[in-house]
């Protein structure tokens, strides 16, 4: 059913200020500018179709984020371009318990140096984006919502419709995956030397 001109105005007034947020979230999922804009456009189409079901207009941001995430999942299935979103909450492996801090820190240096902080400062923005793009989409999504967008566990829980405990565990695993990618990248670029030690449990 077509929106009235008043509804179109309301939707436009609420969506346009959030366009940068939607674009950024879509970009971190797609990592391709064309696909990012297509994902945002498709999200807006679905938002138009469902706008009358949105009871509280003050909650339009998490509502749009949820639509964007669901649209991304559908596009993954259709295009088979991105990794299929598939995960098991209790199927942890070593990569998902990895700590960059445990790998790089040198406690014996005490007050005279912080190699782990020096490493993070040496990383370029592109290094971080690249590492983020390489972790599984469902974990990347929660890391982006929490660390880039600054949403609380409760807000993420509402967007994904999952319990807060699940949000917490996905954030922990997503960060571990990210840190593993950053570590591999730092070794590859010669920023650090690979150490032979066991991974630290979070």
């Amino acid at each position, binding site marked *: 059913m077509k929106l009235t001109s008043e509804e179109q105005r309301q939707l436009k007034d609420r969506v346009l200020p959030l366009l940068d947020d939607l674009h950024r979230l879509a970009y971190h999922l797609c990592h391709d500018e064309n696909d990012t804009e297509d994902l945002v456009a498709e999200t807006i189409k679905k938002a138009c179709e469902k706008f009358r079901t949105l009871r509280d207009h003050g909650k339009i941001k998490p509502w749009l984020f949820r639509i964007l995430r669901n649209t991304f999942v559908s596009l993954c299935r259709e295009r088979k371009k991105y990794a299929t979103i598939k995960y098991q909450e209790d199927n942890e492996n070593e990569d998902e318990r990895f700590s960059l801090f445990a790998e790089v820190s040198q406690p014996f240096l005490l007050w005279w140096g912080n190699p782990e902080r020096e490493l993070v400062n040496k990383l370029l923005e592109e290094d971080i*984006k690249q590492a983020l793009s390489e972790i599984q989409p469902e974990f990347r999504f929660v890391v982006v919502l929490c660390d880039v967008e600054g949403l609380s566990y409760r807000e993420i829980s509402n967007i994904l419709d999952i319990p807060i405990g699940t949000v917490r565990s996905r954030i922990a695993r997503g960060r571990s995956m990210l840190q593993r990618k950053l570590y591999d990248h730092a070794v590859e670029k010669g920023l650090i030397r690979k150490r032979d030690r066991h991974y630290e449990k979070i």
Partner: protein
Amino acid sequence: MKKSNHKNISCEEALKRVFDYIDDHIQNTSRDEFEYHIELCRHCFDRVEFEKLLKSRLQALRYKRSSEWLRERVEDIIAEF
């Protein structure tokens, strides 16, 4: 230093709370115990500072902006409905 009537939790217990702490998802006694621990434990303090720094690098990715073309495309989509 905070009052020492807080339980000094172990490093293992502190590590479990690091992400909750940097995400501001830890409250009351649990937060006090954690803060008391990192005042006493250099290793856990460094871990917290490291995780905060990494989080701040991710927060810095927030500047990315959408294009004017996308804005026009979205306005067109809404106008069509």
